[in-house]
């Protein structure tokens, strides 16, 4: 017997409540700063190119994951892209069904080697096709704050 003693009565079961009180502030980073500044100020999506590997990373980043080269060459991509996959998400962050399901897309922006993840909008479910062209809808410049949410969603192009 692994344990000589057990909790014998349901009434004796005890729990203790608590949490991880984690409030975080995340800097956009060196790559993120450049990427989001350009998005905010110029409304343009940019990537960085690894000359060694020929990969264009979007969002732009300062290192190549393949060879760890330092990336300094920024290039403009998109704004249009191709829908490579989508999902209709029904659960919220609380794990409960959302009143309004959200459509999320996996998008390959024109000129990028990598994928971009964002919401889809202005689209009916029966319109969604693999390979369809989409384009970003940005918040007006005055409302942009240099974050991924400066893009409201992608819509059919």
């Amino acid at each position, binding site marked *: 017997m692994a344990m000589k003693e057990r909790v014998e009565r349901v009434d004796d079961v005890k729990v203790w409540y608590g949490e991880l009180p*984690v409030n975080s502030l995340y800097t956009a980073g060196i790559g993120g700063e450049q990427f989001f500044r350009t998005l905010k100020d110029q409304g343009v999506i940019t990537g960085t190119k690894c000359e060694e590997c020929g990969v264009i*990373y979007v*969002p732009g980043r300062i290192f190549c994951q393949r060879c760890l080269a330092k990336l300094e060459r920024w290039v403009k991509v998109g704004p249009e892209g191709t829908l490579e996959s989508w*999902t209709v*998400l029904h659960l919220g*962050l609380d*794990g409960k069904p959302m009143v309004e399901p*959200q459509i*999320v897309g996996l998008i390959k922006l024109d000129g990028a080697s990598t994928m971009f*993840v964002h919401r889809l909008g202005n689209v009916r479910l029966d319109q969604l096709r693999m390979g369809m062209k989409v384009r970003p809808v940005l918040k007006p410049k005055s409302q942009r704050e240099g974050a991924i949410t400066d893009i409201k969603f992608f819509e059919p192009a």
Partner: protein
Amino acid sequence: MKKRVAVVGIGVTQFRSITPDVSYKEMVYEAAVKAYQEAGVDPRRDVDTFVSCSEDYHEGTSIFDEYVPDQLGAALKQVQTIAGEGLHGVVAACLQIMTGEFKVAVVETHSKASNMLTPDGIAVCAQDPVFNRPLGLNNLFIAGLEMNRFLYKYKLSKAHCSRVVQKNRCYALNNPIAGRGALLTDEDFATARMVAEPLDQLDFAQPVDGALVVVLAAEDVVGRLKGKPVWIEGMGWCNGAVSLESRDWDTLDYVTKAGDMAYRMADVKNPIEEFSFAEIDDTYSYKELQHLLALRLVTAGELGDSLLAGQFGLNGKLPVNTSGGALGMGYLHEATGLARLYWAVKQLRGEAGKNQLLNPRKAVVQSWRGLPTTSAVVLVLSS
């Protein structure tokens, strides 16, 4: 592997959706007592090194490593935590034994998933805080995107996924420790609620609580111990691109690399032919199919038909997840891989009860760390 390592004891608790009567320490203690008894070792005297696998956010405690030693009999001994999957822990223990400095090692993992009141709120904290998290999307969207693309690319359907679920949850009925066994009908699948289309509520493994402790030993001491050895012939582990943007959404290159590493070590030349069975990750139904491909256990052209023809069933060419898998046993977070190892050991020892295969010799066991990771471990075992 040049210096061979064997599993000589494995202890496990019942996997249940809730375990209100025991603390995590007590649950682990129970598994440890069973494992040590099976191996015939005294942890205070005979064990040289201990490895535990845990993630702080799952426990609700920072530096959970602190709370590992006592219930394992490991206080003031060599103990470390891997913030990784249970099979990472097995790899870490094997590497230690292979240095020649350690003879007997213990690996522990557990799940107290039921103690997380906000599992989705916790899971989202694994998303990139700058590029993804501000979108406020439940992690399941990643599975939805991947599943949709996978089914499209490989011309598979939801029916294939449902078949996986049906198979695994049915097998779990014959696995005494499994917590999610069920006989599911077509109607169950037809009425399943969508969570991240095409993924529905039956497509993913439901969490359970449970603890596992494994005793490993170097070849030269195996003979002195009581436990019946199951040999670890090969091991491989690998990470792919972690960022959602720069990962390869078409192939699970990290699973393939981990598999190839393990196969190379175990001298497996033709994985389709050489394994008696497979215990591979099925945290989501479609993942079992993806992992079969990535581990080169079936060709893309044959995948769908083989599945529907029952080739991955108990009487098929390559029985897959006769334990019930994560879908049938339940999802144990870091302990999920060890639960598969447990069943593989049972099969290879001939102790798998109603799901026992005839004379199995060699098996592949694989784990994946779940969303949003690209981290896999593969072991090759032999009897």
